[in-house]
Structures are given as C-alpha cells and as structure tokens.
C-alpha cells in the first residue's frame, strides 16, 4: 500500500487530534519572536482540513490541491501560504495518480521545498522550516515503508532542532530578533517536528 487519499485523511485526523495543544505551544514560541499567529494558522488550518478530509478526490494531486485550498482559506499568514504552496507543489508531482509508492515521498517533499524557497525567499541555513524539510528529505531518501520512515523522521527532526537551536534566525520577522532567537527553537521547524510526533503509535 502506498500513499493514497486515505493516507492523507488519516494524517489529517492524527494531527487534528493534537492540534490544539500544538497550536498553544506554537503561539507561545512564535510570540517570543514577535509574530504569534502560527499556532492560530495551524489550528484553523486543521479545522478546515477536518471539514474536507472525507471528500478528498481519488487523484492524489487534486486531493493535495484541495488541502492547499482549504488551508489558504483560513488566514493570510505567511506560514499558511507556505504550507499551501508546499501542498500544491507536492500535488503537482502526483497529478493523475491515486496511489503513490512511499519511496516517492522524499521527491514530493523536495518539490514542496523548492516551491517554498521560490515563494518565500528563504534559503537553507536561515533557521526556518526549510531546514527541517531538508533534513527530512535526506533522512527519508531511499526508505521504502512508513514503518522505516517514521523513526527516521523523528530522529532527523530532533537532530535538526538541536543543531539550529543556538543559531540566529536569518529571515522574516524573527530576523529582527536574531539575537533573541538564539537558544530558541524556530516555531516553523518545531511545528513540523510536533506534527511528526502525532504519528507515533500509542
């Protein structure tokens, strides 16, 4: 079994279950760096996604586009826009396919990352969610099954947070607080790490 619309549905359900505490945590983290709407975007975004998860089209590309559309309807925050951008770019990779091998996931993430770079203007090393994506792509490349991927993703996420914690943010509003951001986890990175945690089997 590869990635299908049911995989997306399951992912939405798993994350939505824990999104409220994640949202609170992200708001706290994001608020320290001056913006503070990341958590709200996540909570509202997943509320919208919950609303469409049962009606996703079979075509995985269109399903990811539908998710992007639903995420953009919540707010004009840059995180929401980038999330939608990522979903659309991943969707383009799998247009007209209803089932995609898990081994294609790193390629989808790579397309998502490229699109986020093009749209958001951040570079690798700026201490943003792009750096998290980059680590995940490396960690997942060559793996075949979600059972292998989950622990690899978790480890990569933790290592990325650790290695960037003591660096300054180099872009966005957090850049203004570059000094202050040293020692703090980047909210976008942390958001991805927390979403990965949602897939842990209890």
């Amino acid at each position: 079994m590869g990635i299908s619309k049911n995989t997306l549905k399951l992912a939405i359900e798993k994350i939505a279950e824990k999104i409220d505490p994640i949202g609170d945590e992200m708001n706290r983290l994001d608020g320290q760096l001056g913006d503070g709407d990341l958590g709200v975007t996540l909570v509202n975004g997943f509320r919208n996604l919950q609303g469409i998860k049962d009606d996703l089209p079979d075509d995985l590309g269109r399903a990811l586009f539908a998710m992007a559309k639903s995420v953009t309807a919540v707010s004009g925050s840059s995180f929401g826009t980038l999330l939608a951008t990522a979903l659309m770019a991943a969707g383009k990779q799998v247009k007209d396919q209803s089932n995609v091998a898990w081994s294609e996931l790193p390629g989808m993430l790579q397309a998502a990352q490229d699109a986020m770079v093009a749209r958001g203007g951040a570079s690798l090393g700026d201490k943003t969610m792009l750096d998290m994506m980059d680590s995940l792509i490396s960690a997942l490349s060559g793996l075949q099954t979600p059972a292998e991927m989950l622990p690899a993703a978790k480890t990569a996420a933790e290592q990325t947070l650790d290695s960037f914690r003591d660096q300054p943010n180099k872009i966005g509003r957090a850049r203004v607080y570059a000094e202050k951001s040293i020692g703090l986890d980047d909210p976008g990175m942390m958001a991805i790490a927390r979403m990965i945690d949602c897939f842990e089997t209890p």
Partner: protein
Amino acid sequence: MKKLINTPENYVDEVLAGMQAAHPETYRIGGATGRMLHRPAPVPEKVGVVSGGGFGHIPVFAGYVGDGLLDACAVGDVFASPDMNPMLESIQFADQGRGVLCVVGNYGGDRMNFDMACEMAEMDDIEARKVIVADDVAAAGPDEAEKRRGVAGFVFVTKIAGAAAAQGKTLDDVVAVTQRAADNVRSVGVALSSCTVPQAGKPTFEIADDEMEIGMGIHGEPGVRRGKLRPVDEITDEMIDMLLADKPVEAGGRIAVLINGLGATPIEELYLVFRQAKARLESAGAVIAMHLVGNYATSMEMAGASISVLHLDEELETLLTAPANCPFWKV
C-alpha cells in the same frame, strides 16, 4: 474614528451588498465567502480579465467590474489581500476556454495569492496569466522598478486589458498589450491626511495639519519627502518633475493623464492639479489624448491626490478609447 458604518467587521461585506443593490445590472456578489464581485454573466468567447486586492480603494479594484473592463474581482479585507480562493473563483468565473488574465497590483500578498490561484487554475486546465502593475515612481528608483507599488495606474492598465479582451484577442496578445500598458504608466501621489482602517480604529499614520507627504503609498507607506504644505501648483510641479524624470515625454508624444483623488480631497482641488499638470505636460511637448479627473483609486478618507501618466502608442490609444462601462467610469 468617525465613519458612517455599522460594525468594522461587516464593513467590506456591507459595502459590497450596497454596490450590488445600487448596480445589479453590473455587479453580483459571488463565491463561497461572498468575496468575489462579478458581472451578471461571463462574456462568452473572450479572454477573461480579473483582478483582486485589498478593500478600501473603491473604485479600485472591484469597482472596475463592467463592460470592457473586469469580468470578476476578488475582494479582501481593508488593505489586506484576499486569500487565494476568491481569486480562483474569479478566474473560474471569467474563463470561457480562452484563458484568463489577472491584473495584479504589486503587493506581496496579492502577488503570492494570485500565483497560487493561477497554479490552482492550471490544475483545472485553465490558463491564467498575470500582469503586475507597479507604477508608483516614489516607491523605488528606476533600477528597482520591480519593487514599485501598484497605485492609480491600475485604472489604465485594467482598461487596456478589458478592451483587448473585448476585441477578441488571444490570451498571448491580451497579456502582451496589457504588459506594455503596465510598462508605460507612471504615477506619484501626495497625501495630506491619513485614513483609518475600520478594524484598526485609529489613523494609519500621523501627519501634522500643515504637512504633506510626497510619494506616500495608498496604504500610508512612507513617501519620498515630508514637508510643509505648499500651493497646489508647486506640489503639482514637484510631482510632474518626478514623473518626467522617470519617463520623459517625447515632443508630440501622446499620453493619457489621470488626476486622482484619494478620497477626502474635493474635486475642485483635483481640477487645480489638472490645470497645472496639463500646462506642464504640454509645455514638455506632450499631447494629452485622454484625461480623467476624479476619484478613481482611493484610500477611504485619506486626503491627497495622485497623478498618473500613460505613455501611448497607437494600439494603446485605440484600446484606451474603446467603449467601456462601469458605474465609476464610462468611455
């Protein structure tokens, strides 16, 4: 804040409802969130022309839905980009199988959301392209012209796009001539007092009673110079100087001129600006083929004015003077 409104939260939706009630032959509210204004029906067999942007600038953007102008327009909150969805709805409404042109002001949110809407449209096999309006010479120098904001020049660019589409041109041709209009329009403004975003409740910026700011953006973005208010002829001279320095007129060069009020400035004063602008432009050798004086791109109750000059060629002039009709402008 002193406004004739009900609640700030409902401001945009209620204004749209009023516009539809006043002009049902032209405007219909549509879209899942009611943030698209569109013509009663799409016009078959032509390229669609749409726009979208923050509210608070009526007639820009949605006011220019009409014959020979926009087919549909996405509406955001006051001074805030609409999200991608009403933009996509506008593209879908306007598409008649020949593609859609999006005329977009050069603001980050508007551009980004239209980028996404165009990608979404592609998924539905609709070809949607963008022309960016970046006409404010005060916002950045010629070497960084791509950073200029889109202001009242939008009116001319939209007119060209709408007329080109109405003539049955292909999407490629509509895009090309609209891009040429965008490349050849320049604007600059002067602000005398601030506006107040209803949900903010306080003036967007402070400016003393005896001060003006040349080059200020239509959302209160910083201009090039703040100083004491001076006679209108001198202010007009300064603005014309900026426009001509950026793009000189050739002797006998044909132009269109828009003297635009920002909302609170009386039309009388706009005629004073036109009087001096016409004299200056003509003494520089220009021939004014078309002029507009009035409130075409506003910032709610901001006082001030802007001058836009579109440098014409034969095709642009033909398109600019072709018939068009919306409640704010009839050609």
